[in-house]
């Protein structure tokens, strides 16, 4: 038996345009969003015989209705993949698609699969956060978790309390920066955004761009926004990822199969880690997850040349940067903008980070390693470390 570990490569990733909840994709089924991503991936990679796909792992946070019925399987069938291709659904709230990637990658590395599709979708229009939840009464009776920690905005306010040096002004400045970086990179981002039909009372349209970015955002504009989570608080709509509809999908393969089929190699997976933290301050999750992943890979934070960190809230990104002593405006961090600008359709965002990092790798042959990292509701963090195949420096 061959018990050696194989290299896992990220071949290609795509996403739908991200829409504002209740707007662009309100009438669009979540499964249709991710089906479009899967079909686009297959079209973009004609060298891949669809029957070679060993798994379709798809994430959604709320797995009911059009996000239920074992989405991985139903979407695979509806996307036109052969019936022989299996699929399943997966959930780790915001890190759903990231976990889909790490799950199938572990199986590829250990020779269980050769090729897999991983992705995620969230229609926050039709499945708002907390839909249908039924928290165990022991959470309150035994004071296991502060019930307020089920609201993500509250946990962001908690972070400001915990780290008084992260002020509202710093958060606002970060948000203005991410909007500007997005605006500067929008053409390049569009390379990986598939078009998506959307219907409303006004008829059909075909969406081609994200709906949410506010390129003209200024410090002055952000200064007086309401703080919906706490009176006289610090977290505003301007420093939080908006409620979003969208889907992502990517293609992963073992290095040899990719070579055999002539599939491009955009990134090589180095390793990953997930870590639990206090649910009340879930935003710090990326810190221990990243430390754990770096330690296992034998790397340090100084080896990382690009960071794609999910911007659930500006405060949570700043907590990560402070911990690793990285400047608020370090150009290695979210160089093409983040979720505050483009949106965060919960379970789909993990693959969005990866797709973006893959494109950035291609433009940065001087960078060898990058991370994708995100915080997760109820107190978790997830990090995946990637190696740049375009790296030209000394190894």
């Amino acid at each position, binding site marked *: 038996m061959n018990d050696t570990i194989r290299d896992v490569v990220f071949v290609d990733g795509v996403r739908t345009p991200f829409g504002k909840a209740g707007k662009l994709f309100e009438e669009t089924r979540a499964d249709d969003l991710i*089906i*479009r991503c899967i*079909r*686009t991936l297959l079209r973009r990679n004609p060298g891949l015989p669809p029957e070679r796909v060993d798994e379709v792992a798809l994430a959604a946070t709320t797995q009911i209705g059009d996000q239920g019925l074992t989405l991985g399987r139903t979407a695979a069938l*509806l*996307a*036109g993949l052969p019936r022989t291709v299996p699929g399943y659904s997966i959930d780790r709230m915001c890190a759903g698609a990231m976990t889909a990637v790490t799950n199938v990658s572990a199986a590829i590395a250990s020779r269980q699969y050769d090729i897999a599709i991983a992705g995620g979708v969230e229609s926050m229009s039709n499945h708002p956060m907390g839909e249908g939840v039924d928290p165990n009464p022991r959470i309150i009776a035994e004071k296991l978790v502060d019930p307020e920690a089920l609201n993500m905005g509250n946990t962001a306010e908690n972070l400001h309390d915990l780290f008084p040096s992260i002020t509202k002004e710093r958060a606002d400045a970060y948000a203005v920066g991410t909007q500007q970086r997005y605006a500067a990179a929008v053409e390049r981002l*569009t390379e990986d955004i*598939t*078009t*998506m*039909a959307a*219907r409303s*009372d*006004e*008829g*059909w*349209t*075909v*969406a*081609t761009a994200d709906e949410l970015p506010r390129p003209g955002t200024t410090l002055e504009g952000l200064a007086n926004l309401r703080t919906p989570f706490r009176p006289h608080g610090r977290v505003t709509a301007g420093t939080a990822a908006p409620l979003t509809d969208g889907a992502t999908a990517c293609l992963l393969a073992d290095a040899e199969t990719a070579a055999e089929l002539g599939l491009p190699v955009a990134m090589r997976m180095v390793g990953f880690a997930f870590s639990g933290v206090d649910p009340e301050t879930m935003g710090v999750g990326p810190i221990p997850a990243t430390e754990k992943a770096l330690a296992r890979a034998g790397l340090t934070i100084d080896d990382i040349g690009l960071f794609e960190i999910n911007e659930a809230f500006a405060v949570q990104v700043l907590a990560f940067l402070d911990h690793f002593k990285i400047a608020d405006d370090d150009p290695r961090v979210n160089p093409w903008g983040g979720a505050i600008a483009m949106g965060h359709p919960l379970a789909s965002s993990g693959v969005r980070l990866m797709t973006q990092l893959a494109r950035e790798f291609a433009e940065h042959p001087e960078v060898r390693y990058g991370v994708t990292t995100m915080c997760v509701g109820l107190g978790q963090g997830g990090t995946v470390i990637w190696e740049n195949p375009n790296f030209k420096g000394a190894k």
Partner: protein
Amino acid sequence: MYATPLDLPDFDEEVVTEAHVRYLEPRGLGGRAAIITLDNGFDHTKPSSFGPGGLKNLWRALDEVEAAEDLKLIAVTGKPFIFLAGADIKLMPLLESREQGLALAQAGHAVYKRLKDSAVPTFAFVNGTALGGGFELALHCHYRTVSASAVGLGLPEVSIGLIPGWGGSQILPNLIGVEKAAQVIVGNPLNQNKMLRGTDLVPLGIADAQFEAADFLEESLEWAVKVASGELAVERAAIDRESWPQVVAGVRKLVDEKVHNASAAAVRAVDLLELARTASFEEGSLAEDEALADLEVGPQFQASIYAFNLVRALGKRPEGAPSPGLAKEIGKVGVVGAGLMAGQIALMFARRLEVPVVMTDLDEDRAQKGLAYVRAEIDKLEAKGRASKLKAAKLRSLVSASADKSVYGDCDLVIEAVFEELKVKQAVFAEVESLVPEECLLVTNTSGLSITAMASGLAHPERLVGMHFFNPVAVMPLVEVIATESTDAATLSTAYAVAKKLKKTAVGSADRPAFIVNRLLGRMLAEVTGAVDAGTPVEVADVALDELGLPMRPFALLELVGLQVSWHLCQHLNEDLGPRFPLSENLRLLAEADFPVFDAEAKGKGRLTEAAKSLVKLGDEASSAEEVKERVLRGLAEEVRFMLDEGVVPSAKQVDLAMIMGAGFPFWLGGLTPYLDREGISTAVSGRPLALGEAVDS
């Protein structure tokens, strides 16, 4: 007539289709695109259609997009599953004058022409059903894409007595050639109104590209952008203009052979196809307007609409059926007999009800032979792809056969398909009744014997009902459902529920000889053979009804049914209904002949062999074809009147529905009675029309 379509008067009854406009900037277009969505606000069960209001909305939408700046592409599409189902058929009977019809025809042309003449490239994204005026809208666009999953496409106007009058008759032959266009415009409507599917359009040359439904709109737009930006050139096959006149002549001959030019619409459609070779678009449009206006106020269209609504409404909700709530669940079916008819019935029940079906016959050998036939039929279904491997396996597991009638012990319905002889059927039911559970339905497939007589010996006559299927049972859409005086409501309701599951149109009939269809066909044949007996040559009598456009001439019908069966029916009707159904000496002679009566060379045409011709004995009172026609029509009018008076059916509508579905009588006759009433024959025969001015709810 009006300056613009906006001046057309509205109809309150119109469900108005909106024409929503949205703009977008697709990558690579270098400008804006407009998508016009046709949507009546309902789901796909109420397809969008166009009346004056819908046309005006599209007109206004085109006003808007024509004024839009930097527009590089205009696309028209529909709500999910429906592109546009055409002109609103409900409004047409409301057109009160030829002028009104003409105005609507002209308005359609005026609106659609703008898509054709647009300086900005126009595209139809045919996402689903596109019929008649909807199909024609797509034809006016410069380019067309079609969804591979679209169903219900085509130009069915001729089937309801109209012509494709919003450009279809002129654009289509010039796009794909007159031969294929004639198939779509004339051939398909006259062939049980066959529709096209999405996958037919590119091979026919009607659509330029086909995309799968999953991301049809996105891929259509991407394709359209490439075409509009000049990146992709659309190539279409050149059409053969040389052979145009010969093709048209061939189509004329076909229409003559098939319906003997009885369909005014088919004849006008062929005229328009001929015109399309040389006419300018404007001349062609004028000719379409005139043809449409003529036909819309003509009797054939009125009759067709009546028939269309009849089939649609009564086909779904049979008149006189008790509440469906009374119907019993059928979990197992027994078929008595394992002959050909029994095998067909067993297979049909297994396919549609998906419950176990047991056949029995007198001995194991016959039972297994019957089963072998059914299995062979299942193999055929599988080989043709009409049953999946799994479905075929399921059918094989459902159908069984035995010589032991105890298999009926847990049946919920037992149907007999044994020899057409009252005593035989009575004996069968007597035996079966002793074996089945108390709730089990007993069903006879008799084509005309007295069911009351069959019930007379039963302990529970209330559970006996007639279900008369037509041969071949898998194909013929009609079943006559016959209750006796004793049949209870639950039994009758179950029979209708079963008919629905079998996907048959059920028409109720009282327990009178030969029920509806066979009685009327029997009367028709009685008049034809009567005319021959009196001295009319067969060749004259056989073509006498041609101008009605019935699906078969009388002698072809005799050949199909079989002479022995026809003679049997003739005797039976004579016995039960008297001298209106005389015992035709010639029919007897032909039925008893010990040599081939019909020419095998012209199979299905009802042509007598020379030997058979010499057998026919003509009297000395020859009639002309016109006189034979008159005789037959008077006979039919008289018979329908008797049937109404006897209560065989509650209304003439039921007669028409039965004749359309069971005998293929054409829409343009409205089945039968609208024609008899319109021609004054009913009144001449019995002093009043057959229909009581009853409307059909659509």
